[in-house]
């Protein structure tokens, strides 16, 4: 059977690995290549690497770093950060990355996904949506944000994920801004609503604080990707930096208890 995926998500800033809380206060946690080597040894299901500087600085993806990561990575790699053209996406796939993630540029122009899918195949096109829960007395629902949560867009999240699917996304990653680094569980309600809205693979990021949280996501949504940052780079209540990842036996147990199979 197809297994749900458990995916470490690494954030890169100035070529270093960082971890944020609520998309803010990046803390340096190490060297990205070193982290990839550790996740190779731990046989992680997949890896997502997001350069959180590139779009904000208007910079091109750091192709040299991407090439280095791709060559080192023995698991499927999804790279995002600063990708806004078909040429850039083709170049990234050409460097040996399985999936290229597009965020701000896809929010601005969903048709970009169509053009990239035509060039590299839709299986390699991932849309990443940074989503923030509206708070306040008279607001409800979610807003889509870009540029590290600093710009909000007036888009209905359910309508928009359907549009991204139609446009050519092969996968959508839903990244909860307000749950980033909080480690108190995924937004299961949102995950369920989005799972019911589209028929492409989905990955959820933001909030995982334990393997139990991942199990809850699978129980709610079935075979999806569960991505996490803090959970796989910190250990213990003082958030000491320690790259970690569940063993195959632990993964089997999560799948068995949440999906009653395996």
């Amino acid at each position: 059977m197809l297994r749900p995926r458990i995916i470490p998500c690494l954030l890169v800033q100035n070529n270093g690995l960082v971890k944020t809380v609520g998309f803010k206060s990046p803390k340096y946690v190490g060297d990205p290549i070193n982290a990839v080597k550790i996740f190779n040894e731990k046989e992680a299901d997949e890896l997502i690497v997001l350069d959180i500087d590139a779009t904000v600085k208007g910079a091109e993806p750091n192709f040299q770093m991407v090439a280095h990561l791709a060559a080192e990575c023995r698991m499927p790699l999804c790279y995002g950060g600063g990708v806004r053209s078909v040429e850039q996406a083709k170049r990234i796939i050409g460097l040996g990355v399985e999936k290229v993630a597009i965020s701000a540029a896809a929010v601005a122009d969903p048709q970009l996904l169509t053009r990239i899918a035509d060039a590299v195949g839709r299986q390699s096109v991932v849309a990443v949506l940074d989503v923030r829960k509206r708070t306040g007395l008279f607001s409800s629902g979610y807003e889509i944000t870009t540029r590290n949560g600093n710009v909000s867009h007036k888009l209905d999240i359910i309508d928009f994920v359907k549009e991204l699917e139609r446009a050519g996304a092969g996968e959508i990653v839903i990244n909860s801004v307000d749950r980033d680094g909080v480690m108190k569980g995924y937004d299961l309600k949102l995950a369920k609503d989005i799972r019911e809205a589209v028929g492409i693979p989905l990955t959820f990021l933001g909030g995982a604080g334990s393997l139990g949280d991942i199990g809850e996501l699978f129980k709610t949504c079935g075979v999806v990707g569960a991505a996490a940052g803090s959970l796989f780079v910190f250990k213990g209540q003082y958030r000491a930096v320690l790259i970690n990842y569940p063993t195959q036996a632990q993964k089997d147990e999560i799948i068995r208890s949440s999906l009653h199979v395996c």
Partner: protein
Amino acid sequence: MIYVVDYGLGNVQAFLTMFKRLGFAAASARSSTDLENATKIILPGVGAFDHAVELLNQSGMREQLEKRVLMDKVPLLGICVGMQLLANGSEEGQAPGLGWVPGRVRSFRSVEPSMHLPQPHMGWNDVTVDDASTIFANMVNPRFYFLHSYFFDCERPDNAIAHSSYGLDFTCAVRADNVYGVQFHPEKSHHFGTQLLKNFAEL
């Protein structure tokens, strides 16, 4: 020397890194001269079928590839779309395939229109081995990483050497004499993938 055909598609570097780690000499092939000394050939590929055929034709290596594989019987392993290229053709496009393994590439949705499972088929799936004598030797309950919406529908059942299941049972590895193909990505499938590439290198 193992040569990985570099025609602009697929993760050439990942294969080179993997073979280096395993202790096999490997290089990328960018011209037909490179293929002259190949003792094994990897044909990678991602993306759309017609695009892959077009790039392979433009690479100038197709004729030499046919000579080495069909005449000299050099073992070749096609990966993902590189495997699909071995078929006669694909529902995804109009271009004819290499036709080295009789069959046609079909989509999950066209075979099973009522299928409700997400497309593409993405992630780790169990593989049932039907012939463990070659590239699937020394594996117990293997799992591999898949990323595709189309699969190889063999004309002759004896060309199918492994299958997997995603809403329906589908062939995920083929073999016709010295020509092999796998739908999944062994270069990204940890120790099972490593074992498969080692098996191929040692054929």
